[in-house]
């Protein structure tokens, strides 16, 4: 039998103590996590790591820190699972943590660039974020352009246009109002268009009049 989190496991053949599988519902999963059941941790990861990884990827692009950030999201989530008020919103709660982690990472890098600008000799070398070889020019340039957006606008832009999230979901993930997210998106679109027009790999995508609708 495959030892999956949803498979019943016999803890002791002599006493026939059987661990119940983690049910599919998030309510039961959160309850199991709050009760400290070890297999619930794996169930949480198996159920939502794909979503969290996707959100991180969308916001940051190909990035060498992705694994560390993914781990960090789940460490925070598992550590603060006791604070989940509505277990049915588990997915959104995790997305919110992922968005905050990604945003923090962006802000940290932007601050680092400022420090290097003012005192380049006083800070150690920072790694270059190198995209994998198989990444296309369009993808690479898109994230290069996005790196010039303010962190909040970059996050909103990535979630809305790359991940395809609904506006309300973007607002919820960023923990701001719908009006705020609309303003951020409008600013991000203007800046992105201005910067992308200077890039041959993106010019065709963003030139006004080329939209499909």
């Amino acid at each position, binding site marked *: 039998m495959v030892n999956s989190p949803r498979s019943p496991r016999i803890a002791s053949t002599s006493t026939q103590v059987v661990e119940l599988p983690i049910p599919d519902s998030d309510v039961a999963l959160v309850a199991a996590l*709050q009760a*400290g059941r070890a297999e619930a*941790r*794996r169930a949480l*990861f198996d159920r939502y*790591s794909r979503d969290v*990884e*996707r959100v991180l*990827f*969308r916001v940051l*692009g*190909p990035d*060498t820190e*992705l*694994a*560390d950030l*993914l*781990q*960090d999201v*789940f*460490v*925070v989530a*598992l*550590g*603060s*699972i*006791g*604070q989940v008020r509505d277990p049915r919103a588990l997915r959104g709660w995790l997305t919110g943590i992922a968005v905050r982690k990604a945003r923090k990472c962006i802000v940290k890098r932007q601050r680092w660039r400022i420090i290097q600008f*003012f*005192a*380049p*000799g006083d800070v*150690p070398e*920072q*790694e270059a974020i*190198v995209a*994998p*070889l*198989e*990444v*296309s020019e*369009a*993808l690479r340039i*898109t994230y290069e352009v996005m790196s010039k957006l303010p962190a909040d606008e970059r996050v909103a*832009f990535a979630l*809305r*246009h*790359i*991940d*395809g999230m609904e506006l309300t979901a973007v607002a919820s993930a960023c923990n701001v109002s719908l009006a705020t997210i609309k303003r951020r998106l409008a600013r991000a*679109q203007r800046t992105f268009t201005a910067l992308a027009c200077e890039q041959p790999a*993106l010019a065709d*995508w*963003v*030139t*006004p009049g*080329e*939209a*499909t*609708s």
Partner: protein
Amino acid sequence: MTRFDDLGRHIAREQDALRAQSSVRTEVRARLDTLDIPQVQRHAITRWPLAIGATAVAGALAAAIVLWIVPSKHETRLIGVTIGEQEVPGTTGTWVEAPSESAVAMRFSDGTRVDVSPSSRARIAELWPNGAHLLLENGLAQVNVKRIPNAAWRVSAGPFAVKVTGTKFDVRWSPEQDAFELDLHEGHVEISGCVFGQNYELNAGQRAVASCRQGRLNVGAQSEVHSEVTTDAADTAEDIMVVEAAATDAQPAAADDGVATPVTGLETGVRSSSGHDVHSRSAAARNRNAAARAKARDVAERWRSLAQAGRYADALTLVRSVGFLAACKGADASELLMLSDLARYGRDYDAAAQALHLLRQRFGGSRQAAQAAFALGKLQFDQDGSYSEAAWWFRTYLREQPSGALAREASGRLLEATSRSGDASSARELAAQYLREYPSGPHAALANTLRGDAR
């Protein structure tokens, strides 16, 4: 649908293809299994006073930074430098490549002179009012720093940094061999980076030979320590003394405030190939050991708790307060892995590698040692882009743990690293092997592509 959505969908499709080949989730799942993550109940707190306080502190800091940076950059006169016999003025960023037949002199206005030896390359990284930061990119530089008050000089070579106040030394660096050497003729210098830890002090008449990649350090009298750069690295490997800071019974000495420092701990672990101590501990240092040990134990418990709670930044700050090597010294295999992770989160990749090398030296043959090999492969792959080195480490993992939890990921990474290193024939063989063992594994698409290329 907007034009941004069109572009976004295109980007998302490409990302999804990359994600399908990625083993990130499997790696993180394995990592999480080893972590003890206690649940934290956060208490409601009033945040306004904190916010106001933080804003005030931030404002004061910003003002201090502005006051500190702006005058030093724009009002203070920087040291002057001329290059070569033609006395070409140098500035920040000036690159010097000496011809094969003669050295090139860099003469600084305070009387300091740096001779870049034939076929060597160096760069002025930065000029300061009382010194400069020089990068030795390759070869040998003979440095003679004028002894004046407040002099500040730094010479970097690969991952190593030499802090100088007034002294005379020769420094060699070969990035190909990953070999660093420093012969100190006068005064003293402090070397930092990788196997040296922080501020490793060297005295007149001593030679330091080091390799970060191999985790080796040899310090001793110049007449006793062999040069590594000018000979074949493989021939000299057995002559190189190995840092066994964590494996020896030596304890880090306490600084004046009772905090253990990594420097002495490292010094006491340096042994010659013949087994005798290169450095002997002073009696005073031994007397401070008990207090240092107690302090180290306390700090160790605290950083472990912080790390297990996911507070990596706090844990790393604490570890750094006692010195990374000192923390490594008292750590077991799992904790060394954790320390390596902490260093990596702090982007100190040299320290991360150092912890992993120590783990392999001290706990060779263990499951964690194999995990360290995998992690070293990842560091080489992700941070250095050294694909051949990375492949070697992934092979090492597979040799030591052929059925280990990371075997599939190591096989995939090995395939990827071999492919990127340009070894197409080996990559094809590995691709076929990967598909036999993991037909639907995360690297199956890459394996199929590589196999397809061969047809």
